[in-house]
């Protein structure tokens, strides 16, 4: 395999690993910030407590007996399907296991405060028993309270009168409010899945299997129970329904988007082949992005998969823009077209990707994941479109689009009237009717039409639960820590209830273990247990039957058993286990969680905020109703930072793209008007923002930035020819907008309310962006004089060339090993070429006369940037002490230098910007010569840094600026036989003269000729070039001259030309080391090389 093959293989490995790691989940909590108490609380409640994991099968019949029989039959049938179901309960477990009540009661008494247990023991002393039993008879004779009658009939000693515990804990609340409606015609079966955790696909399959079992049981009921209506709700039903719906929606969205793209493309181009490649490129982009997503995240949420639709919508822009350019100029090669469109696409992808990456600061992990995926996808997509799609479609000339249904417009909107009309309309709507409001409800997370939600609503209605409950989640390292939280919370909630802020609350305080209390109470309990016979005798004497003492016997027996297992913290019977699973769980760290229920009275958000502030630290208060407000508050705190960051990134990226503040400002103006138009339309239609539709904002931001870059760069290419703009970029953007609107619009009927609202906002937003960017922006650009703006290549050195970068480079030279430093520098050079294509074009222009061929010049230019990066790294390493002076070896011609030095006439070393000329200094130092380097002033404090660095190497520097006496010192040094070094190309203005190089006019420094005339020195051309072995310094033969003839300026200019042309063969041999990043060949109508008169 060749090198390229290995490279491809190396790239493929992470992609394969990424695809192998890729998993999907639909857990809504993975999208939300887990550090937010409301989210954390709901997550703990949903994941740890059985009632959130249970499927609720609800049955309704006109006759209670039919409903009851149906519930029993279904529960019994499901209980036999142990591979599916761990338990299926249709009635309170204590009705099935009444004997458990005594054990639970005994356990509850042990958990009571010792003072309470002591009071019980005192009440049951031998002398008090007669009074206790008489009171029980009195109650049985006169009470009208049915529960009290029931209780005391079988509890003559009042053992069920617990101080704190709820009756449900002991098994005396019959639980009809949980399992059935008051009239018994509505029944609920609680079905716990056999598997602890299921992903959304597994949940869907499990749900289907249980539904089938239930249907089978109902069909087998007597007469088929025709009026028995069965519904399903609860965690697994919601998970299956929501995730299934969302997945289906997203699939249909992607499919629809692709379909619409195909349709519009056909309308525009009447050609299947490029369309096929476009779809292949889109699918390849999706695949690569998914692989990268798998590599980065491992598991992707189905909502994050929404990136696919966004990505397709944006990436198709790149393909269509490229193709449109190709259609407009079919004679150009793919490389030329890529050269034309790459800046626009590159900046667009980078800007939009940067914006999406910033979504990570919104505080929503789901949004952050979507942002990263979209950003990765955009960069991948830009690469795929430029380097895969474009070469593929450009293999054949495009078919004539004469049959296109999308013909260019005859009259392009010009002038500000349309803009003024749109602005006034938007202002009128927003001023008159306001901006769309933001709703904090969690309803957008609900499906639009959901059998599970309908079933839950019916359940609430039939069981009289009108308010959505709030949950209080307690956590602690052990049972005692949780118990203390429960006690503290009890006081807070009782006060809130007294103030009317909540209508009720249920905490499991009464059924929560207190090992510390139990240890103290156990001896007294054992003493009571030992008096069983006495209790029986006294009760029978008071007229109670043996049956009436069953509970007492069971309770005393349980206390006796407590002696055998004093370490037992929780009761172990099946009734207690079920009860405990409703409100207690272990967390991942082995600590304990407890769950309480709070019923708010009015404003759930305000109640939530109040309770969250007043409950003990560590108690999480949450509810589905308060989730929306909590999330909005959470996001709102970050919006300012996010907006600032986005604005900074946009300004930076747009500046890199345009290099003109006016066009940056135009982009921002287009963004502002697009969003104002969207807000106005939303107000008119009556839409509001919600948790999901807010996601549209960054998406539209990306889309609009994308469009402003494409349009303005196209305007630069086509100038005032707006029809040309429309025929290329405008048409491509129309296709993109159409595809996006159709793609998003297809989700308007999504099964999820939030997703539907998000997509409707996106569809309208994309339309607004298109209208503003393609319809109005070109007119602004023209009116503000865009067409007259100088679009020439950069004439100045890069702003990166300064002391700060130099110092950073020196650090790089010290810190990194050579291989890594070279690699990083070459990578930076490649990135620079990508982000500054105009600079690359300058180098290509500079090298074209040298090589005579555009393609060769481009190849050399690419190497040139890379070589320059390497040269800088080596120079930094040398100056930082990391590279020895021995790295520069003497090449040929140094006998000329020796002869020149020995002549005593002084030596003027001349060289162009070729190779690493600074390395001449150590070589000369090694030869025992202290040279003087002539240099022009460098920008940004670099001059001083360079002078100091050369001084450390034993080299003197003379900065030649506007000081006319500077050369006097140089002449004196030469006259004394010294060595002076001078760069002869790209001179400062005072010494600039026009000569001919490679047959072209060229600006060179006349300084060498002036010094020769003044001092009579030897002019010795030298060059230091990098080859496979390192750096080699060669001296060429001296350039001979007639000193007397140099009195004439023309002769000096001619001499300068001769000096320059000495280097022609060397430059032609090493074009990649001739470093000029500003134009060196004056253009016909461009800057003219000046000569001093």
């Amino acid at each position: 395999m060749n090198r390229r093959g290995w490279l491809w293989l190396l790239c493929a490995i992470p992609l394969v690993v990424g695809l192998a790691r890729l998993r999907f989940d639909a857990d809504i909590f993975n999208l939300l910030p887990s550090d937010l108490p409301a989210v954390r609380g709901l997550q703990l409640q949903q994941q740890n407590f059985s009632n959130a994991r249970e499927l609720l099968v609800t049955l309704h019949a006109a006759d209670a007996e039919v409903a009851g029989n149906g519930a029993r039959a279904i529960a019994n049938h499901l209980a036999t399907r142990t591979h599916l179901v761990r338990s299926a309960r249709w009635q309170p477990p204590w009705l099935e296991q009444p004997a458990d009540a005594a054990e639970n009661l005994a356990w509850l008494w042990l958990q009571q405060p010792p003072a309470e247990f002591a009071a019980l023991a005192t009440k049951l002393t031998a002398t008090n028993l007669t009074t206790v039993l008489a009171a029980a008879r009195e109650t049985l004779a006169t009470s009208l309270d049915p529960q009290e009658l029931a209780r005391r009939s079988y509890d003559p000693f009042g053992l069920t009168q617990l101080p704190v515990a709820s009756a449900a804990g002991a098994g005396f609340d019959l639980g009809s409010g949980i399992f059935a409606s008051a009239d018994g015609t509505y029944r609920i079966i609680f079905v716990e899945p056999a598997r602890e955790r299921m992903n959304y696909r597994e949940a869907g399959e499990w749900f289907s299997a249980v539904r089938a079992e239930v249907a089978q049981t109902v069909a087998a009921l007597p007469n088929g129970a025709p009026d028995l209506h069965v519904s399903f709700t609860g965690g697994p039903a919601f998970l299956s329904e929501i995730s299934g719906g969302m997945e289906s929606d997203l699939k249909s969205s992607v499919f629809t988007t692709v379909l619409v793209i195909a349709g519009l493309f056909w309308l525009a181009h009447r050609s299947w082949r490029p369309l096929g490649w476009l779809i292949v490129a889109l699918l390849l982009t999706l695949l690569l992005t998914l692989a990268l997503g798998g590599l980065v995240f491992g598991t992707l949420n189905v909502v994050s998969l929404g990136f696919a639709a966004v990505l397709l919508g944006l990436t198709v822009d790149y393909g269509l823009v490229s193709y449109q350019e190709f259609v407009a100029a079919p004679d150009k090669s793919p490389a030329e077209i890529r050269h034309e469109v790459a800046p626009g696409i590159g900046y667009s992808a980078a800007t939009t990707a940067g914006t999406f990456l910033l979504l990570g600061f919104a505080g929503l992990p789901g949004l952050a994941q979507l942002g990263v995926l979209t950003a990765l996808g955009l960069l991948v997509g830009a690469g795929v479109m430029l380097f895969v799609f474009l070469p593929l479609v450009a293999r054949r000339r495009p078919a004539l689009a004469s049959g296109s249904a999308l013909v260019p417009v005859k009259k392009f909107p010009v002038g500000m009237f349309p803009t003024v009309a749109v602005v006034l309309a938007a202002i009128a709507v927003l001023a008159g009717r306001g901006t769309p409001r933001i709703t904090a409800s969690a309803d957008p997370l609900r499906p639009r039409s959901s059998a599970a939600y309908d079933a839950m609503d019916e359940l609430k209605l039939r069981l009289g639960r009108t308010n959505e409950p709030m949950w209080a989640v307690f956590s602690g390292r052990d049972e005692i820590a949780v118990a203390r939280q429960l006690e503290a919370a009890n006081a807070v909630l009782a006060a809130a209830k007294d103030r009317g802020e909540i209508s009720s609350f249920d905490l499991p305080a009464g059924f929560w273990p207190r090992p510390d209390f139990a240890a103290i109470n156990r001896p007294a309990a054992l003493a009571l247990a030992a008096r069983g016979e006495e209790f029986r005798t006294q009760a029978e004497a008071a007229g109670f039957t043996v049956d009436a003492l069953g509970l007492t016997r069971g309770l005393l027996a349980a206390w006796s058993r407590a002696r055998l297992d004093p370490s037992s913290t929780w009761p172990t019977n099946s009734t207690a286990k079920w009860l405990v699973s409703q409100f207690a769980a272990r967390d991942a760290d082995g600590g304990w969680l407890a769950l309480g229920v709070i019923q708010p009275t009015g404003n759930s958000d305000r109640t939530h905020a109040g309770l969250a502030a007043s409950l003990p630290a560590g108690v999480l208060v949450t509810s589905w109703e308060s989730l929306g407000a909590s999330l909005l508050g959470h996001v709102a705190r970050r919006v300012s930072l996010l907006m600032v960051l986005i604005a900074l990134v946009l300004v930076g990226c747009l500046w890199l793209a345009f290099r003109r503040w006016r066009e940056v400002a135009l982009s921002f103006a287009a963004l502002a008007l697009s969003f104002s138009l969207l807000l106005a339309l939303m107000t008119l239609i009556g839409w509001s923002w919600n948790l999901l539709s807010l996601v549209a904002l960054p998406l539209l931001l990306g889309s609009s930035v994308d469009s402003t870059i494409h349009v303005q760069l196209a305007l630069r290419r086509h100038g005032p020819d707006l029809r040309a703009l429309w025929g290329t970029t405008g048409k491509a953007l129309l296709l993109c907008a159409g595809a996006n609107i159709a793609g998003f619009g297809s989700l308007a009927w999504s099964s999820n309310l939030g997703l539907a609202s998000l997509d409707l906002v996106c569809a309208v937003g994309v339309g607004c962006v298109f209208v503003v960017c393609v319809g109005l922006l070109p007119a602004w650009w023209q009116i503000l004089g865009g067409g007259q703006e100088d679009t020439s290549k950069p004439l100045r050195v890069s702003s990166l060339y300064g002391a700060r970068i130099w110092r950073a480079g020196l650090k790089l030279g010290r810190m990194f090993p050579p291989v890594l430093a070279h690699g990083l520098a070459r990578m930076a050079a490649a990135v620079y070429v990508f982000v500054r294509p105009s600079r690359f074009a300058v180098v290509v222009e500079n090298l074209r006369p040298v090589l005579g061929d555009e393609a060769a010049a481009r190849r050399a230019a690419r190497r040139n940037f890379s070589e320059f990066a390497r040269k800088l790294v080596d120079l930094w390493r040398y100056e930082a002490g990391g590279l020895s002076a021995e790295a520069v070896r003497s090449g040929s011609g140094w006998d000329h230098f020796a002869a020149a030095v020995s002549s005593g006439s002084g030596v003027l070393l001349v060289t162009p910007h070729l190779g690493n000329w600074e390395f001449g200094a150590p070589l000369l130092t090694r030869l025992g010569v202290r040279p003087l380097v002539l240099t022009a002033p460098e920008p940004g404090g670099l001059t001083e840094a360079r002078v100091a660095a050369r001084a450390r190497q034993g080299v003197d520097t003379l900065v030649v600026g506007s000081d006319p006496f500077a050369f006097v010192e140089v002449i004196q040094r030469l006259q004394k036989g010294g060595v002076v070094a001078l760069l002869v190309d790209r001179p400062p203005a005072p010494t600039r003269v026009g000569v001919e190089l490679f047959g072209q006019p060229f600006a060179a420094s006349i300084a060498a000729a002036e010094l020769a005339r003044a001092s009579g020195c030897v002019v010795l051309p030298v060059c230091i070039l990098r080859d496979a072995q390192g750096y080699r310094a060669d001296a060429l033969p001296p350039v001979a001259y007639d000193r007397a003839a140099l009195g004439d300026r023309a002769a000096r200019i001619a001499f300068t030309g001769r000096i320059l042309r000495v280097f022609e063969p060397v430059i032609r041999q090493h074009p990649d080391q001739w470093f000029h990043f500003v134009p060196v060949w004056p253009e016909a109508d461009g800057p003219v090389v000046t000569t001093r008169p």
Partner: protein
Amino acid sequence: MNPQHFRNLLLPLLFLLGATAVLAGPEDDALLDRWLARQTNVIAWSAEFVQTRHLKALTQPLTTPGRVWFVAPDKFRWELGTPAQSIALRARDDLLIIAPRLKRAERYSLADFALGPMKDALALLDTGFPRDATDFHRRFDLLGIGRTNATYAFLLQPRAAAARKLLPELTIIIGTHDFRLNATELVFTDGSRLRNDFTNAAENQVMDPALFAPPMDATWKVTEPLKPK
């Protein structure tokens, strides 16, 4: 007595108060029709009674004296014990179960009962006196009539299955000569029985409205056990 069968013990008691006022007829349906015709003239009724509870938990029955007042269409006061240990009071749409000695009361909105197992019985209370035999037969089957020289004993069974599970049988005993209520008896599923024997009954006497006014003030503890949370 099984605890679940006690759950709505109170309601059948109250039902019988209304229902017995209906059953004044001497013979089967004809007796019922005659009683209904007479019943339209009864707008107030009061009596003393002795309640006997035969509970399965006790070897001997418990007896307690008490008093009852009724005003058409839907007011009543039921006192158990002397002095009253428990009071059941219906005023407007509320039913109050009061423990005067403990200054405690439980309030039940009649709407809370509307869907319960005793819906049929409550319907009688809600609508006052059933005025026709059809309405009565829609709710109960007349299993038979026990006759003595002094009384007719109507043996009834609720038609609704849910009600029947709680209260399989009930008996209403009236005097043969004056069609006045003598006693009621409920039989529960576990065999427990509850009987009220009425004496000193008075019809259509003016009653003090204060009898039906809730006695609670701010010092009382009032709870609503069936109020949805």
